[in-house]
């Protein structure tokens, strides 16, 4: 089964939102699939993509991999010289 890029993008947004909303959540693809009500396979693609662009942290491999939100680099006190 192939999934259109469009759908993947939508799913990616959904995942991003999920993790932004639950910044302390730790999820496996299986667990997240249950929560979002989505298929595991596309979810795995999306989760890995999000991990690749360092929005998510990934621990472990395969079915045992755990994904969690990676806080972006923030600096709130940049002096303007």
């Amino acid at each position: 089964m192939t999934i259109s890029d469009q759908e993947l993008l939508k799913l990616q947004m959904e995942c991003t939102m999920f993790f932004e909303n639950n910044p302390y959540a730790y999820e496996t693809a299986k667990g997240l699939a249950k929560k979002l009500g989505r298929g595991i396979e596309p979810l795995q693609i999306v989760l890995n993509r999000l991990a690749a662009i360092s929005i998510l942290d990934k621990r472990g491999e395969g079915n045992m991999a755990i994904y969690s939100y990676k806080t972006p680099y923030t600096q709130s006190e940049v002096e303007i010289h």
Partner: protein
Amino acid sequence: MQETGLGQDIVHTGVPGLDVLLGGGVPRGTTIILEGNPGTGKTTLGIQYLLEGARQYGEAGIYITFEELPEQIYRDMAGFGWDLRELERQNKLRIICLEPDVLLDQMMRTDGLFEQLIREIDCKRVVIDSISLFRKLGGLETDGREQIYSIRNIMRKFDLTAFFLREYGETEGRSTPFENYVCDGIIRLSLREHLEKYRKRTIEILKMRGTCIVEGEHHYRFMNDGICILPALSMVEDKILNDGVDRLSTGIESLDEILIGGLPHGSAFMLDSNSKANYNYLMNSIHAERLRQGDCVLFMLSGLSSIDTLEQTLALFDVSLKEAAAEERVFFIDHYHRKVAPEYEKLVIYVDRLSNEEYQKKVYEAINPHFRETMVQGKRWFIHYDLNTIISERGREFVKRNFADEMARCRAAGITVLCQSNFTEIGLETSSFLERASNGVIRTWVDGSYQYLQITKSPGGRMSAPHIVDNIRDRPYVRLI
């Protein structure tokens, strides 16, 4: 910057009422099983334990769940006015929802997720909901023993005080689940139909290492802001009744200590021993001490103990039964019509070949005049009640019908009673009934090469830790270690 009491290694659960039952809290680093049927509030209590830790004591906690979606927990707990997300933002709480195998995998790794989280929020408390799922982990032939054991050890390693939630139904009727030995305490939540309309929620602490607990079933309620435990009425009553009550020394210093001074005057205690255990020294020490103090004692003679043997054993405690007989301070109930020395004759109530009604009447009529007379003189009465004999001679039904009544009458008259019984032989049903009818239970049993003694019930609700019964050369020949 709230200061935590250093050197103080008790973790206050913070759940209203629970710490009272736990004698202040649970020792840090222990693992406690919290069991109950679905709907008894295990999750609520578990979350409350973490929440109060964060709110009152500034201790962070992790809630690990395998079953529920965290969203469900957030929503449910919002009903109690608990904002768990806010606690997460404050780094006081994490709710982790992972499959058991994945969690375990991470837990076993050095610097795995679990370890990282503990460091990240300086976690002190953990709740795992529930350990029942671990059973399925190791495959069919195991019961998840290894996994749970590992997790328990991980908790201990990080000095985490953990609650393991467990479905109650699944262990019912089976042999004691292994985790009961692995963990340091068991708290049970129950929900029972009560008076048709009400459902009674009770909490009971079945076991707790390293802390004095208040035993018995206590009610708990769901309040607007979580669970609140109401200590059992009996506990309150006992507490009131206990204050200012004389304590009758058992003659064994270490036993008096765990009884907080001795047997309360006017209480009914059960001495439960299995057949291997030697309870004779214990009992005779108590009897000797009564006689030494000038009390009146009514002995129920068993098939094994005649007046002669009694006289001999008491002599070991430097108490003369004959002298007491001369003062008319000792009486005997004999079911076997044995010959006695003349000085005892009029003090023995022969109850052989009597129906139950006749038996009761005879004992009552024989004792009553003495009782009244001596009470006027201000003497205390003590009854040694051999339940084993009564059950074999009078039958189980007789005991069930009359025992509670008799004990109540004795209590009312200020008579202290020590019943000797063997719960294992009597059977679970009757013995639990007997236990309820008594104010206290002293259990002694042999396990391996040691004999143990434990106060499993007392009017103040205190349970003692099990002690080893050690034989010594001098009076009272036993001590507790």
